């Protein structure tokens, strides 16, 4: 085992800094701000899709990506689950239930719990249909392969992709376009962001993915997180500039 090194200490410092800023922001902003931060456009698109789904009485498709347990490419991406919670919280009584497709086993199981929880909270457990939440493939390509035919069916209102995606998944954007379905791609993978950007769909860019707020839902959490990110950015910028100057002047070895 390696001994604890300077980078490890810096890493611990960064985590500590994040926690401190988080707590400070939380303490200073306990009330809902009258001047909220602007929502992320892509997440606003999700809200529009949710409404569209309920207005048109058609099903909404939610692709959760394949990154959670690390069985595939990425580890620990739980943001898609949050988006799912928000979407499901509002769509349990839609004419057609939201259909969810996961690309990771554990993600599919957790998603099942989330979906069931949403129905239970709405006191409508009997409306819950397990087949609307399924694993659509065991790896990222198979996940997309399972999703595409579902997307090609009639009676869908739109597609939300939220989670770890890969650039190849932009095929889904193309099929969605063919099917006249709006698509929102929320992903933290810059590669996939670039591909979906090229496809013309609504996509989260950069870190925006980690700030899920859909309309008023999750707004407080989003406000705190956005403010924390802003402060973190500023602190980081100041530290970087100072460190660069110190390095340049030879103070830092």
């Amino acid at each position, binding site marked *: 085992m390696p001994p604890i090194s300077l980078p490890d200490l810096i890493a611990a410092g960064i985590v500590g800094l994040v926690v401190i800023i988080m707590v400070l922001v939380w303490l200073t902003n306990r009330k809902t701000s009258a001047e909220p931060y602007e929502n992320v456009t892509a997440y606003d698109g999700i809200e529009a899709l949710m409404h569209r789904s309920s207005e048109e009485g058609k099903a909404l498709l939610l692709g959760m990506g394949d990154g959670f347990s690390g069985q595939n490419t990425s580890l620990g991406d739980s943001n898609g689950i949050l988006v799912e919670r928000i979407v499901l919280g509002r769509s349990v009584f*839609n*004419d057609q239930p939201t259909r969810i497709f996961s690309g990771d086993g554990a993600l599919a199981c957790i998603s099942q719990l989330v979906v069931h929880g949403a129905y239970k909270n709405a006191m409508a457990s009997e409306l819950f249909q397990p087949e609307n939440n399924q694993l659509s493939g065991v790896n990222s390509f198979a996940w997309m392969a399972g999703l595409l035919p579902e997307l090609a069916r009639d009676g869908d209102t739109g597609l939300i992709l939220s989670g770890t995606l890969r650039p190849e998944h932009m095929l889904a954007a193309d099929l969605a376009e063919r099917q006249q379905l709006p698509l929102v791609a929320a992903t933290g993978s810059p590669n996939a962001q670039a591909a979906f950007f090229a496809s013309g769909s609504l996509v989260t860019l950069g870190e925006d993915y980690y700030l899920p707020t859909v309309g008023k839902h999750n707004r407080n959490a989003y406000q705190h997180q956005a403010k924390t990110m802003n402060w973190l950015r500023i602190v980081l910028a100041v530290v970087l500039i100072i460190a660069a100057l110190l390095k340049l002047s030879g103070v830092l070895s």
Partner: protein
Amino acid sequence: MSDQGDDLRTCPNCGQENASFTLRCIRCGQELEGLFELEGFDPAATSGEDQADETFTSAEVLASLEDNPLIADDDPDEGESSDKVEESDGQQCETDQDEPDWLERIRQRAREEEDAAGELAKGGIAMDDQRTKEGRKQVDEAFDEIMRRIREQNEREKARRSRRVESDLVDENGDPEWLRRIRELHPKQEDKDESIEPDLSKTDGFDDEWTEQELQELLQREMGMPEVPAEEPEEEVTTELSTSSATNNELEEEQEISEERFPYQDDEAGNPVIIHNIPEDEEELFYAEPEGEQPSDQIENEEPTEFPAQAEDELIAEEVSGSEEIQGTLGAEGIGSEEEEHENPQVAENETEEEPEQIAPAEKSVSTEEVLPDLLLLKNQRERAKVFAEIIGQEGRRTIAVLHENTPKGKLGRLVLGLLLVLAVLLAILLGPPGSAELPSSVPAAAFTTNLESVEADESVLIVLDYQAATRNDLEPLFKKVLDFLKEKGIQPRIVTANPENLWLAGDVLDASLLPLEYVPGGMLGYLALGVRVAPSWGELPMDQALPDEPDLFSGVDQVILVSDSAEFVRSWLEQVSTWRPWIETSAITTAVSAPMLLPYHDSGQLQGLVAGVTDAGAFSINQRAFQVGMLLMIVILLLGMIMKADEDAQKRAEERKR
């Protein structure tokens, strides 16, 4: 993950599966036996109809809401309309009119969460107990009694509040509250008003003179509205005569905005006609109701301080607040806290249906052209009005755009472009030599080669595979090269994968070299577990059995070569594994698409080398000529896209100039 439903109970009547806590069948209304079996209730009274299959739609939920005694109207028409809903839905079973399912659930919930139960819930619980003893009819009577009491209580409370608000609204000078607020917001404008409009301020004490009642009357006179009895407490106004030119300008601007957004709003007679797809009853809601006659059940949903006492003159403001509902519906960011109303439109519907008489004059008064010049809206109201106007302007449009409209021409274009590329590649393969020119190595690729060359014969190399069949053509040529190189040096690498796909995929490469491929369970978690691995004193870890030859994957390893088509995988490796084994040098063979996001890791020294795709390091296993043709075609297409866009813009500009 179960494929079965929740702990469901099957309805003995229709076979529908219901939640365990549901007291009645959601399809046919049949009383369900078991835990919540009720005495004194005749299940035969309900009937089950078609149970074909199909899902339980929200239409049914809405239908049950319509049956809700809380929001049901005594008006027989209302009953008829709900009947119609049921009749029109052929598949929907007859539901019990007195006892909707959702109410049962709320009671059940209240029973479960007794701590959180309010008076109503407690009443419900007690009522259920009573029901089991005395039967359904008595229970319903008791329920009605409770509801009546709550209504009365609410009405008393409301009347009291209304009186209080009325008294609060006038200060010691006799200035109404609304006027004070406006003064606070527009102190300068008021001064200005006085100077510019002496005719209105020639009598001293302008504010004192114009009482709310007088304003009300004046406004009604101007608008030709029938006078409303002055003694009605609800008729507080928040309007002010538009006296300043500045204010007029503002309003004109606003009108312009609204006109811009309602290109079709004027009919032939010049009357404003707003065409949109908001249901009319919802629209009526915005024109609000005199509060005194508001149904008491609605009061529960209303925040007491939000609309203290509204007059017909304030309808615009109400309309604006109503717009929040639409905003929520259409996806724009809502401003107020109207979520509850939005989620329970049925309540709103009933509310409006109850008071057609009051609504009629209000509707008349709200024709925007008439009202706007005479109203000075509060700042935030104006903002809301803008939002509302914007939303109405968007009516009938998509709430979220489809990427591009899918015209047959577009489909054809897509097909042509695809075929063009296929044809170009085919021709390049069939005609002419494959090409031999090698691209110059990039810096990371050169570093990869240098790093590989520096490996000594006695060093241990670990190769980690994580790629898919789709990208094998981009990776396997380089992988083969590396294996050949290591073989030349006499190094036998250990090859592992955590991706099941590689077990069958890598055979093409590995069969030739006769190297075994080991499987690491758990994906990245597995690598992490091996990275942090310390043999415990108490025995073996479960994973030791999965890698029986050498459980410590990184024991003695000097070099790790990742063969992956995913930048995420390489990043995860560097984050999760390399940080635990920092002395092991890591390099990667990856696809061209992954390279840009991995370059920073090479730049920071975390990756010793990086080759990306067949174009890197000159490992062309495919026809290079075809590759060049494809690239060239893409350049042309990209340029074409830019030119088309520029042309489109030029045309638009030309059209604008013409106009």
